[in-house]
């Protein structure tokens, strides 16, 4: 092959022999382009940098990625987006409620009542509703700890077991301390432990003690027990300080029963009459027909006097103790006597002697077997104050070698807690099974955290022959372990599964007796599905009352006096945080106290008379002063609230505050009132009659109150009320019919309108709220918060009057002022009548908010709902200004993902807390308005279900969260177009023939009224008048 002359050129420059090419031809890397010109290079550097910086910052602006991990295999029964409900049981010490847990994608997000339970009957309380957030408490223990260092369970078990063995081998003393245990299987697991380690004693105590009552029954009837009560059969109720609608024994159950006696209409014109004799204005006292203020030092004598009054009617001899001139007492005696066998007398006192007299009164009235059921004893309070006191003394005396605290926090909530806390460090083995690191937990060396109840298996026996189960609604979030398993592991069982244990127990205990005709698994599944298993109660076989009444009278005469002059302290359980176990739950901290309307604070209450004497003043903005409260040598500093209805000479203080180890929400909020309680005659007494003083300090303090104006200023358009005697004559008693004057005549205000109204061809949603059965407890508020992701805002924002609650309960006191005398009307009476009015969006048919929104963000639905479109809202707040009910709430700040609200609103600011959010309801952004939607997500879900099943929606299928939570059944929600619906029947809705689907329904119930009827906004919420069972109307507003 010859050589070719072919030349391969690299480019046109090469071919043309361009000088620029020749210059660089020998270089391997040719420098061409921008680099040649240094000027360009700088510019391009800047360009590139500019671009990169811009690109980088744009990338940085991107929404952070939140991980959502899909199921690889879809679990059976868990469909994304569809909630599952599990029957379970809420138990906190002896507080009991049978519940349904709503879970979405494996997360419990809401608690509802279980209607199958004969005890709670579908009712709930604020604490039950709020407990779902406690599951996601950031303060929970993440796993076991040894001497404050994280450990694993194996190490802990090994160390605890070896120490137990060591103590046992030396013959040492071991104590298991707990609150009341309702669970039979738990008791068996403890028994196993006791069998293994002889020298073990199990001590039960209750933070709120009922031991005196237990002992009184022991004395009267020979056996210690606490009976069931049936308020539904009581025509006359007399309560001496027993707050049975709020906190006493089994308030959910009692509220249900009580409400049935307060529901009246044209056909049912009788209702129970309720007398309350108490020191603090309690929720129950606020609902009473006649309320008398009594000092704790007089209370025993008042009970004794009632006995004397009744005894004289019964022809029996009077007791040596008594007191004259107690308002309403003789009237109460008359009424009780007239309602023999259908009356009920209860008392909060923990004084055995007084409870013995109460027993005698009820026996005299023949209430045993009708309103009091000793054949159905309750297990809610099994604590033994004497055993507990002895335990503390033993610990302090070094007589105890090992202590296990289960489901209790005595260092905080026992009067001798400080002594116990100090002595614990001298004990060789101290274990706590608390699921948070509470005051007791932080004084022990081994922390073996229990599951939260929503993660646990368990069984309960709240009453004799009534059983219920709890089942986990979520996989344990942390490395906690069920305490019962811990007991069994420490007892030496190597294969422990508490679930199997409970199941086996039930098989042995109940399955055989059940005769269900099912195999065990099916029977068990049914029990689990129902959540409750109930056997017929024993028959009442009569009761012979014994007990030395005259000795009781002597004891009463010795410990009470009619004319104590010093200050006295009356201690009560908080309506929000209860006994303090759930203090770290902001839902409860921001739940307004039903009476004082205070949130996030812990004041003492005093009467106006005492406040004036001591120099305290309150103004219309909750400004007050701090006072130094000294009780039995212990001194604390507390804000002072002037409380109408507070007995002069008494100071009220609630339990549940002053937690020192509880988490960010409630740490050091308020003072701990447990140490003020004293042991008298072996039981813990909730009042202190001597050695109490309150001195004003110069320091000012502002309380956070959600309602700062206390009276309704005589406005009949807001509150319409009357008394039973009037109601019997005319069921429309107390109604106010506003008129408008035309040029020629006066007409009903509602008949004049510029609007054409709407026609609701399908549903027309409405609500009825019975002011007579609403007790004001507030569980609806918490239920609404949880269901609708309502933001919690914390104390400072509440002081700025910016709480976000969609539903509030307005509490009005009566006033002695005359109509038109506005200054006098602003002041509440000394012992006022109280009315509670739940207030939420009224879903007006002529909604004033809808017309004023410039962007049509709030509009009317075709079913009568006033709906809020958050996305469209620009936040002018005009709608809120124009809302006559002031139920619209503005997002003043960003309440989610905002450090400022971290401790007040963990549900929107922590990864753990966010798990509680309801995915069906938007978390609102800042700058938008929000309000009650009538739980539109529930309406929508109900409609979709009906649609899928090709049928119409049935009444009762859609239940709002507030309605579901209401134990008294005061709230009824439904379709007013459906003649068969509960609301149509309750309101006696008649169809207007001319316009059957129009907004103007004929309301046949004479008690039903719309708030502010005169302004013609025509709400879809109706209130039923408040009727008090009194002889006479209070003259003034």
């Amino acid at each position: 092959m010859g050589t070719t002359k072919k030349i391969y050129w690299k480019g046109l420059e090469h071919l043309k022999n361009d000088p620029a090419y020749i210059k660089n031809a020998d270089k391997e890397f040719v420098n061409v382009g921008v680099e040649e010109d240094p000027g360009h290079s700088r510019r391009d550097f800047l360009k590139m940098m500019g671009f990169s910086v811009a690109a980088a910052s744009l990338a940085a602006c991107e929404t952070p990625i939140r991980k959502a991990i899909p199921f690889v295999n879809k679990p059976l029964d868990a469909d994304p987006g569809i909630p599952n409900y599990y029957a379970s049981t809420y138990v906190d010490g002896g507080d009991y409620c049978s519940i349904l847990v709503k879970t979405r994608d494996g997360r419990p997000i809401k608690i509802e009542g279980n209607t199958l339970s004969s005890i709670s009957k579908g009712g709930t309380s604020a604490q039950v509703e709020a407990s779902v957030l406690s599951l996601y408490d950031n303060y929970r223990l993440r796993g076991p700890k040894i001497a404050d260092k994280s450990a694993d369970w194996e190490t802990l078990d090994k160390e605890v077991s070896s120490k137990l063995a060591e103590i046992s081998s030396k013959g040492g003393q071991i104590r298991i301390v707990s609150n009341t245990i309702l669970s039979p299987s738990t008791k068996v697991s403890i028994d196993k432990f006791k069998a293994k380690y002889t020298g073990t004693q199990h001590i039960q105590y209750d933070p709120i003690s009922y031991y005196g009552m237990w002992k009184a029954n022991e004395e009267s009837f020979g056996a210690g027990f606490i009976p069931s009560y049936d308020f539904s059969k009581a025509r006359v109720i007399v309560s001496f300080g027993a707050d049975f609608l709020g906190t006493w024994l089994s308030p959910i159950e009692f509220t249900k029963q009580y409400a049935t006696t307060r529901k009246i209409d044209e056909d049912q014109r009788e209702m129970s009459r309720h007398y309350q004799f108490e020191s603090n204005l309690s929720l129950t006292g606020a609902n009473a027909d006649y309320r008398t203020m009594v000092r704790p030092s007089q209370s025993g004598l008042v009970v004794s006097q009632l006995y004397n009054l009744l005894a004289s009617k019964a022809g029996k001899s009077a007791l040596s103790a008594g007191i004259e001139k107690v308002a309403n007492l003789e009237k109460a005696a008359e009424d009780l006597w007239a309602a023999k066998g259908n009356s009920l007398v209860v008392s909060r006192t923990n004084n055995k002697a007084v409870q013995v007299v109460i027993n005698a009164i009820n026996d005299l009235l023949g209430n045993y077997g009708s309103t009091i059921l000793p054949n159905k004893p309750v297990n809610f309070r099994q604590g033994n104050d004497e055993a507990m006191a002895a335990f503390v003394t033993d610990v302090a005396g070094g007589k105890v070698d090992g202590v296990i605290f289960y489901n209790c926090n005595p260092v905080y909530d026992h009067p001798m807690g400080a002594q116990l806390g100090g002595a614990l460090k001298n004990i060789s083995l101290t274990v706590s099974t608390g699921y948070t690191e509470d005051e007791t937990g932080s004084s022990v060396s081994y922390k073996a955290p229990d599951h939260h109840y929503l993660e646990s298996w368990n069984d309960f026996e709240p009453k004799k022959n009534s059983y219920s189960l709890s089942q986990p609604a979520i996989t344990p979030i942390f490395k906690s372990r069920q305490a019962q398993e811990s007991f069994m592991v420490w007892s030496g069982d190597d294969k422990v599964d508490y679930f199997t244990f409970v199941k086996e127990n039930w098989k042995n205990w109940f399955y055989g007796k059940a005769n269900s005709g099912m195999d065990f698994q099916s029977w068990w599944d049914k029990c689990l599905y129902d959540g409750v298993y109930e056997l017929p109660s024993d028959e009442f076989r009569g009761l012979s009352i014994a007990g030395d009444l005259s000795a009781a009278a002597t004891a009463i005469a010795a410990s009470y006096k009619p004319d104590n002059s010093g200050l006295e302290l009356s201690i009560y359980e908080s309506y929000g945080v209860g006994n303090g176990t759930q203090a770290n739950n902001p839902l409860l901290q921001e739940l307004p106290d039903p009476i004082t309307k205070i949130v996030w604070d812990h004041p003492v209450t005093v009467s106006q008379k005492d406040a004036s004497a001591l120099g305290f003043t309150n103004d219309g903005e909750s400004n007050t002063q701090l006072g130094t409260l000294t009780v039995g040598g212990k001194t604390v500093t507390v804000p002072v609230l002037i409380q109408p209805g507070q007995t002069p000479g008494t100071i009220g203080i609630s339990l549940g505050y002053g937690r020192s180890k509880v988490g960010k929400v409630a740490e050091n909020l308020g003072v701990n009132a447990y140490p003020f309680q004293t042991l008298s005659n072996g039981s813990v007494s909730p009042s202190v009659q001597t050695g109490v003083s309150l001195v004003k300090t110069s320091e000012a303090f502002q309380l956070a109150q959600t309602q700062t104006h206390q009276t309704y200023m005589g406005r009949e358009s807001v509150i319409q009320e009357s008394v039973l005697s009037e109601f019997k004559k005319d069921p429309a008693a107390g109604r106010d019919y506003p008129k408008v004057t035309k040029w020629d005549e006066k007409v009903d205000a509602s008949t004049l309108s510029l609007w054409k109204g709407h026609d609701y061809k399908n549903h027309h949603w409405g609500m009825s709220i019975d002011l007579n059965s609403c007790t004001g407890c507030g569980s609806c508020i918490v239920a609404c918060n949880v269901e609708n992701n309502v933001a919690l805002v914390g104390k400072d924002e509440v002081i700025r009057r910016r709480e976000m609650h969609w539903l509030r309960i307005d509490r009005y006191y009566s006033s002695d002022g005359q109509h038109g005398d506005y200054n006098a009307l602003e002041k509440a009476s000394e012992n006022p009548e109280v009315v509670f009015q739940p207030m939420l969006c009224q879903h007006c048919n002529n909604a004033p908010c809808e017309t004023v929104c410039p962007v049509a963000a709030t509009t009317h639905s075709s079913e009568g709902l006033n709906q809020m479109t958050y996305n469209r809202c620009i936040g002018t707040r005009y709608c809120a200004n124009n809302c006559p009910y002031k139920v619209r709430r503005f997002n003043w700040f960003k309440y989610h993902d905002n450090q400022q609200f971290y401790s007040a609103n963990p549900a929107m600011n922590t990864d753990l807390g966010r798990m509680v959010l309801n995915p069906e309801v938007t978390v609102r952004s800042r700058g938008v308005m929000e309000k009650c939607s009538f739980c539109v997500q529930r309406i929508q879900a109900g409609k979709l279900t009906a649609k899928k099943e090709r049928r119409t929606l049935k009444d009762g299928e859609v239940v709002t969260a507030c309605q579901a939570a209401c134990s008294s059944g005061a709230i009824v929600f439904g379709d007013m177009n459906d003649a068969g619906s509960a609301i149509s029947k309750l309101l006696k809705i008649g169809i207007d023939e001319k316009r059957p689907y129009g907004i103007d329904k004929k309301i046949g119930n004479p008690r039903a009224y719309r708030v502010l009827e005169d302004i013609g906004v025509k709400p879809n919420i109706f209130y039923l008048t408040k009727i008090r069972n009194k002889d006479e109307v209070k003259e003034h507003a």
Partner: protein
Amino acid sequence: MQATSVLRETLVTGGKTVADVSHDISRQVEGKPTRLWWMAFGVAFVLLLWGAYCCWMLLWNGIGMWGLNKTVGWAWDITNFVWWVGIGHAGTLISAILLLFRQRWRMSINRAAEAMTIFAVICAASFPAFHMGRLWLGFYWALPLPNAFGSLWVNFNSPLLWDVFAISTYFSVSLIFWYMGLIPDFAVIRDRAVVMGNKTRASIYNALSFGWDGAAKTWSRYETVALILAGLSTPLVLSVHTIVSMDFATSIVPGWHTTIFPPYFVAGAIFSGFAMVLTLLLVTRKVFHLEEYITIYHVELMNIVIIITGSIVGVAYITEFFIAWYGQVPAEQYAFINRATGPYWWAYWSMMTCNVISPQLFWVKKIRTNLVATFVLSIIVNIGMWFERFVIIVTSLHRDYLPSSWTMFHPTMYDIGEYLFTFGIFFCAFLLFAKFFPVINMAEVKSIIKSTSEKKKAVH
């Protein structure tokens, strides 16, 4: 028959010639800013910066920075809005209505009054903007723009939407009217700059004057447009505040829901506007030595307007009480009793003292022709008018229908900061205007200069 016309009072004193007018007014524009001007501007600018910080904090954190609450959803924001809009009204009244009524005395003051209108409306508009929870969406969602949201439209029922139209129309018409009037005067400054050889100024003012040529035809068009715009502005004087008042009047809040509001608000607006014009002009005439253009006669006439409108406002206050009693609506009765005797009694009585009692002093000629007294009273009137809006808004809202929701309102630093922000805007803008624009309408004033002025006589 012989008709003798009455000798008219001289509107411009000191025997000014046409050339004097050009010189006196233009020299403010041509000279260096005085030390006093710098000091005033400095203060205004600091206010602006401080206010801007407060606005930023509000935008960044939310409306919660203000002291508003669940019951009182508007307070200082809308108070300030109504206050500023009201102030603006005087400018329009002077330039439009008085033009139509051929009140020639208005010529010395209309320029500054119109400028005040423009700046006051800008200040006013900032409040509806900042008071929105979501400003970034609100400023265009409140406009009826075609959009991709389906059939989503604004709510034409809402008075707030009417406000949007009312304020934007008012602002655009006022701005055009004002600018139109400035054109021949810019041309004067341009011409003087050409003579003085200041090319930069000449070109700037040439551009500002749109190349005004001063031809008779141009003048004729100018006059026509001025008349048309005056005609357009006249209903605006009445309509803007009427619509603003409807924010309240169409609501159902006791104390807001009253049919008297439109005339009462318009009267109040003119009342406060004239007071503000007086406040500004009394300072301007002193600083810029314009005593011969803005005379005691002007001051007296404006004070008379203040007596009349102040009395109308006073009658309105009393009428509200009468109607509350006569109407027998309990909520409304309480609202008015609460105004006078409730927790905000001090605001009510401040309002009554400043608005009803203090202007009555102007019945005394000595007082209404006294500059110091006029200045003090003009400020008192504006304080009173601020309280009027505060009383209407806050005391009506804070105790409405349900006593459970009654609250008090406490302003925060940011409420105050936002208000100061608008003062910053207003005074910065007014000072810039006074320095760079002719503060008196030279073209018009020249038309009322007497050809036989005393000064001229002296020369001959």
